[in-house]
Each structure stands twice: as C-alpha cells, then as structure tokens.
C-alpha cells in the first residue's frame, strides 16, 4: 500500500470514456510521460450501493 510522500508503483486500469462511449486502457506511466497530474477518485460500486443507501441507509445494506 502506497502512502503520501512515496512514489506510486505503475498500475494499469481499463477505462470507459463517456465522451466517445468507448473502452481503453491507461497506465500511470502514460500520465507521467505527459507530465500530467493524476487524481484517482474511488467510489463504491455504482447502482447497488446507491440504491440501498436511499432505500435503507447504512448498516446491514452494505453486506
């Protein structure tokens, strides 16, 4: 697990591009090569959790 101040090991991610409705693959190295910053924004899986939140709130709905 990487901590603040440490170099992040390279990783790859399959991505969906909403602008073109296509799929692709990105790696951390690609962004570093282009001297760009990268923000990763993690969230719990789409539909399921959001619906359970509305329906019953936290707690038992998560499992």
């Amino acid at each position, binding site marked *: 697990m990487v*901590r*603040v101040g440490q*170099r992040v090991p390279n990783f790859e991610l399959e*991505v969906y591009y909403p*602008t073109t409705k296509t799929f692709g693959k990105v790696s951390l190295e690609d962004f570093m090569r282009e001297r*760009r910053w990268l923000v990763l924004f993690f969230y719990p*899986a789409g539909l399921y959790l959001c619906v359970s939140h509305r329906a019953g709130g936290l707690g038992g709905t998560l499992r």
Partner: protein
Amino acid sequence: VCPTELADLAEHYDELTKMGVEVISVSTDTKYTHLAWQTTEKLLEKVRYPMGADPAGKVSRLFGVYDEDTGLALRGTFIINPEGVLVGSEVNYYNVGRNAKELVRKMKANVYLMSHPDEACPAKWEEGKKTLKPSPELVGKVYSALQE
C-alpha cells in the same frame, strides 16, 4: 451518494484539466457497468472523465481503499504529481460525500507549490493568497508573516 459525487466532480472537470490534471473515477465495477450506468443515470450525463474499472480490486488495494468485507472501494481521493509521487490522500466512509470544489482548491495549491518548492500553503489557501516560507526565522512568527 455516488452519482451526486460524480456529478459534482463532472462540474469541475474543465477547471482541473486546464491545470494539467487528469481525473479518473474508479470503482470495482466493470467497464460495461460504467457504460450502462453512465448512459442511463441522468445525474451522470455530464461526466466526461474516464471511468476506471477495477473489478479485481488491484488498484483499490494499492491505495488501501479496498473493503474486503464488501468487495467495494471506499470513497478515496488520491493526488499523484507529475513525478509519480502521491501527494494527497483523503478517505471517507460510505455515507459522506466529498466536495469537488475542495479538490480544485487543493490542486491549485499543489500545482503552485510544484513551481515554488520552498513555500507552503497555509490553511484555506486560495489562489493569489499569501504563502509561507518555512525557515528558522518563521518559528513563532506565522501570525505576523501572514499579516505582511
């Protein structure tokens, strides 16, 4: 919470890309689920950033946000600088949403400090506001340094 956070982020995406920042949202969904969700949920119609698929939880584990009990990723935001160093980390539990405006503020500070490495941004720093230059002379004098 999720679609509102993603919609909020979508509203600030232009501002971030103009600073040289790419944003990728990541969940343990597959790319097919991303497509299905993004094209049906009205809140997500303005999303233009790539949506990352991490169904095996590899990247989520790398950043310590993989929840083994649920197989889901916690609400974590990570900032990686152009040299590949992790410079920002924020993780919240399932039930509290983030604020993309605060992410933009932090990114402005990070981008500024990349070209001003001997300075630091104090609390609530906004673009154009005073920064600090940590030094022995500054010890005990932060208040007056900020008044100057």
